């Protein structure tokens, strides 16, 4: 039995320790906001936080989460009040939306350490893939959320 906190709540799961955290979050805990994309830690759709740091959960064994605090997109805020969530809505960032929870979690990790990220810092942090090509709006939303509004992308 493995024990860890997810979005502030203590959770226990009985799964194989090598199971990717992604599948535990989605299937055991029912938190389906975190998405499966590539399965090889490249696309970033599965990004969540472990102790505040971004992790691509398709490549993160659940055993490594034991004793740690997990935050998923559902825990970023409980009322869509996180500045990034509000900026995402204001800039109408998503198109199909599939990659956007991973985008938001990566962006949240970025602005936690870089409250006013430059364009270059955004480029090297936001390597999540988006087949709809929402990248300009992602950048605009991060700028808006960090008080560097530059208008709609």
């Amino acid at each position, binding site marked *: 039995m493995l024990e860890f906190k997810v979005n502030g709540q203590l959770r226990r799961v009985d799964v194989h320790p090598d199971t990717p955290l992604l599948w535990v979050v989605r299937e055991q805990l029912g938190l389906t906001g975190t998405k499966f994309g590539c399965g*090889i830690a490249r696309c970033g759709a599965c990004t969540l936080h472990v102790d505040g740091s971004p992790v691509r959960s398709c490549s993160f064994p659940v055993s490594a989460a034991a004793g740690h605090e997990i935050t998923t997109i559902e825990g970023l805020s409980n009322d869509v009040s996180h500045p990034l969530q509000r900026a995402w809505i204001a800039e109408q960032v998503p198109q199909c939306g599939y990659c956007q929870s991973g985008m938001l979690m990566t962006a949240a990790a970025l602005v936690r350490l870089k409250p006013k990220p430059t364009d270059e810092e955004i480029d090297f942090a936001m390597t999540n893939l988006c087949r709809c090509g929402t990248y300009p709006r992602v950048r605009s939303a991060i700028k808006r959320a960090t008080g560097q509004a530059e208008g709609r992308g």
Partner: protein
Amino acid sequence: MMFGKAQTRNVPALAAVCLLALLVASANPGAAGQTRPPPSESREAGLQAWAGIARVLRHPRCMNCHTTTNFPRQGDDRHPHVNLVRRGLDGHGVPGQMCSTCHQTENNESSGVPGTPNWHLAPLSMAWEGLSDADLCRVLTDPKKNGGMDLAKLEEHIEHDPIVAYGWNPGANRKPIPGSRADLIQLMKTWSRAGAPCPSRTASR
């Protein structure tokens, strides 16, 4: 976004950690003034051992993270790491995309992402790309560059540091360093007993 099997195997080789990637982390400020015991192996034997050591250090599993660049490389062709991975201030990546975003403490069988504790780039003082055998030797033995390690600490690092062991257990279809870690340890001991000689700059390529 889906990727083919071949890409899967190549992917996240933030590669190559290996010998000495942890030097700075395990700095020993007292090493600079070290005194060495008299050599118990010939200089020739030492230089021969060093040539074997240098061959290990030049392997992609090592060199891909001992770069002179602000990014790591990956794969046996040593291409720049995908996903715009950057060195960051301390070799552990940048906010939003740290090494630990993808690389954990063990190789991940399902994703093919390699891992070992404290995955990171070696510091620029230990950048090995483009160095001759002679200069590589001098960098390795310079406490100002190698994190303050004396020979004993170097041997200990090679024998016990998990990041070194990764070179022979890279996971997925990555090629391990030829030979064994035990071979490298033996080469290090011979080289050390010879007084850790470095080739002359004119004799080295």
